[in-house]
């Protein structure tokens, strides 16, 4: 919030766009699917809409700028789905969560992460295998490994930390 305000306390539109475009894009890709050819257009429309509303002073600070943009984004998603459903009478609703493999945009980075996963100790690899690859619940993994569900979450989080370190090297 602070970063999007200029010294004279007016909103810095460039900063807003820089900060929120990735967030809006993430939300749109999750909702419409990254393979949906419209997703970038929808993001651009939302950003334009935000800029327009801020310029017209429709954002009065009743909520945070984040919530303001979240609301605009959510409404646009609903509109998009409604319009698509009208055009194609029996069009299936877009998968709100596209298959994860569709989201790997940076192939090199994906390869790097995969290499780092291979370097993890077996107990961390195992937790990633059961929890993410086998799609087991926290409780199922806990039962299988004979640990508490909280321990499972801790181990997953620690695996991520280790990966971050390995990636930075």
């Amino acid at each position, binding site marked *: 919030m602070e970063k999007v305000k200029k010294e004279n306390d007016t909103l810095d539109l460039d900063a807003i766009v820089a900060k929120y475009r990735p967030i809006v894009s993430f939300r749109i890709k999750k909702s419409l699917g990254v393979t949906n050819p419209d997703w970038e257009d929808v993001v651009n429309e939302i950003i334009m809409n935000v800029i327009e509303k801020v310029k017209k002073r429709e954002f009065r600070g009743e909520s945070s700028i984040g919530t303001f943009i979240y609301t605009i984004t959510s409404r646009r998603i609903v509109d998009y789905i409604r319009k698509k459903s009208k055009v194609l009478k029996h069009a299936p609703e877009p998968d709100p969560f596209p298959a994860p493999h569709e989201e790997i945009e940076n192939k090199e980075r*994906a390869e790097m992460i995969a290499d780092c996963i291979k370097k993890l100790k077996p107990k961390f690899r195992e937790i990633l295998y059961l929890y993410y690859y086998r799609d087991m619940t926290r409780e199922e993994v806990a039962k299988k490994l004979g640990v508490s569900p909280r321990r499972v979450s801790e181990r997953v989080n620690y695996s991520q930390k280790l990966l971050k370190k390995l990636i930075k090297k």
Partner: protein
Amino acid sequence: MVEVNGKAKTMRKCKYEDLIDDYLLKRLPESEREIFEEHYFNCSHCFQELTERNELIAVVKDKGYSLFQKEIMAEETKSVSWFESVRAYITPRTWAVAAVSAALFLLVILGVIPSLRTSSPQFFINEDLVRGESITLISPVIDIPTVPTQFRWKSHGEDVEYKIYLYNEQLLWTETTTENSIILPEEIRNLMIPSETYSWQVKAYAKEGGLIAVSSRVRFRIISTQ
């Protein structure tokens, strides 16, 4: 420790951080999903964590088969060895014993148990099929030399009221008693004539009035008068 969705969580930078996995793995109910979505529009830390975790899950899902070959092989070996150990334990002799045991078990289930069950006779009361017990009539049955003075049947326990019916072509007489026999009144005896065939029946009622047993309708013939 903080509470998120009723679950105890380890203190983190942001309490919503614990929802990241459930959100990405589609395990959040809609209302919580919306709350979390609004949250990551407002929390840079959670959004950063969210994108990193999303990337990790994407790689695991996409490259998991080659990444986790060791784990997959270990699981397959484990399941095969379990099957093998069970199969090794079951010898042909064990199979034979199991088959004989199963046959005996079926024999008991299908043969012995039904025969242990006392069968309830079916009879009709006012055209309604009733399941209950039967009353055995003792006398008179078949042919009798004289007009009967008494009717007797097997007792059906205490606190039972019996209703007796005497018929020729239609109902001739009916009476109730708590005994398992009843004296035929003189005026009814006088109505009964030799060579005629009569029939009688007894019904047993519980103290509360419910019908509990019925006899079959037994015929008898009076061969001569007294």
